[in-house]
């Protein structure tokens, strides 16, 4: 009975966590990828599309959002979640603040991956008459792919951590379970199982990410 209950609770919570992490990864990429590209190409140092003022503004915004404590950002973003998904409680609602909180992180990760691309290669592409769009799509992104994959892996792992924190304010998922049962009802067994599942998730994501990244490098 006890085991059955744990399996049920943890199973549901795991599915909730997976769906939160999956969707917030997708949405944070949709927000963060263009922002990261913009941060890279508008930087006068890379010289692809130098726009110093825009670059400064974006850098500031990203820095402020990144240094904001996540739990406070979540609370601030609840009204937005209500506008977008109609509620501010539960798994679906949590995806909104999670995506927005992770977007600046994704932007930075993408930016630093793209900046690793050899400037000489970009110069060659430019000398051949590539448009800026072609430099981004056909040179920067493919050349940076292994680093991009590592960066996205890191993002997913971060989001697993964030989603556990989101549990504390009613977001659902494994973090929520660990707090409600493990902490508030002294169910250490559920707490332990929840934590183990989270650790396994992180490990699996890390292994898959490293595999893909090193496969991409090996092909070169």
């Amino acid at each position, binding site marked *: 009975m006890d085991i059955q209950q744990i399996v049920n609770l943890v199973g549901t919570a795991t599915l909730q966590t997976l769906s939160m992490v999956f969707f917030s990864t997708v949405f944070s990429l949709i927000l963060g990828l263009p922002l990261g590209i913009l941060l890279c190409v508008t930087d006068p140092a890379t010289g692809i599309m130098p726009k110093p003022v825009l670059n400064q503004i974006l850098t500031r915004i990203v820095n402020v959002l990144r240094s904001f404590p996540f739990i406070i950002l979540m609370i601030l973003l609840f009204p937005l979640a209500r506008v977008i998904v109609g509620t501010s409680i539960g798994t679906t609602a949590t995806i909104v603040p999670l995506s927005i909180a992770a977007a600046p992180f994704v932007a930075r990760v993408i930016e630093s991956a793209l900046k690793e691309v*050899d400037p000489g*290669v970009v*110069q060659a592409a*430019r*000398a*051949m*008459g590539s448009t800026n769009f072609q430099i981004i799509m056909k040179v920067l992104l493919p*050349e940076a*792919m292994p680093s991009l994959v590592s960066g996205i892996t890191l993002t997913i792992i971060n989001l697993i951590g964030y989603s556990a924190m989101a549990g504390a304010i009613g977001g659902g998922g494994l973090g929520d379970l660990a707090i409600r049962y493990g902490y508030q009802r002294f169910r250490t067994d559920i707490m332990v199982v929840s934590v183990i599942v989270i650790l396994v998730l992180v490990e699996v994501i890390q292994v898959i990410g490293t595999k893909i990244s090193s496969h991409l490098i090996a092909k*070169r």
Partner: protein
Amino acid sequence: MQIRLNSLCRTYGDVHAVQNVSLTIPSNIIFGIIGKSGAGKSSLVRLISLLEKPDSGEVYYDDERVDTLEKDALIQRRRRIGMIFQNFNLFSSRTAARNVAYPLEICGTPKDEIKRRVSELLELVGLADRGNAPVSTLSGGQKQRIAIARALATKPDILFCDEATSALDPQTTHSILQLIRDIQKKMNLTVVMITHQMEVVRDACEQVAVLDGGSVVEQGTVEELFSHPKTAVTKDFLSHISSQDAIDSATEKEGELVRWSNDGGEYALRFVGSKTGEPVLSRLSRKFNVEFNIRAGGIQRLPENEIGTLLTDISGDKKEVEAAIAYLKEQGIIVEKLSKGEAD
């Protein structure tokens, strides 16, 4: 395609990288631009190849002014320029063949034509069997060959080589220069070769400009430059090449300066072209009361001509020696007095 530069200037911060450079690069030749590091070569090539705009001055390709081109026109113009680099700058995410395909892809060339053209180009540079190879598995020479194929994909009329052989060993350098010369003839290209190696100028170029401190200090055919070097910079380049070669191999390579005595060699005599066949020295010994002690000698082979160099002491009465030197100069031989140790 002729390239004409008119009073080009470019400043970075307070560094005058390019100062008032005016230069005409004739159509269909290999033109060398030689200079030490920091002489402004890279800055100049970025201006000529339209990667950067000059602060002042003009760049013309034939009669078209190109430094003022903007956006689409600039991109279209760049697509008809080929460029290769010291570090090859190949795309590591692409195979050799797909690197060559890149310039065609960005012009929207149809797929089957890209395929046809890529295999043609791989054939041209002698790497038809390495098309599917990832770039990292190629040797330096092979990488530069792929880079050349990529630069030529869109059938450009100008090819810029920015220190294209500086990362390669002498043998590979030789074969790459040979390839560039072959291609230049085949495709009627104007090739601009930026280098700090006099050997490259000697082996590949027809005309050359010497760059120092951001300005052109000397310019002419390679023959003129080797036989009548005017500036200290040029002489320095030439003396470097002689001693370097002498050290490299005394016997095995034909045509290098061979030194059989480590001291002496007060004068450098340079014989150009037909003069290499005349018995000038023995005639001179009979005519004047002087003696020669030859310390080093060799022949520099240029693409079109050859220049003999002898390092020698001339001993005898001071007046006789002076008269002998005057006679040599009369015969069209270039006599240069070397300070002790300079030839080393």
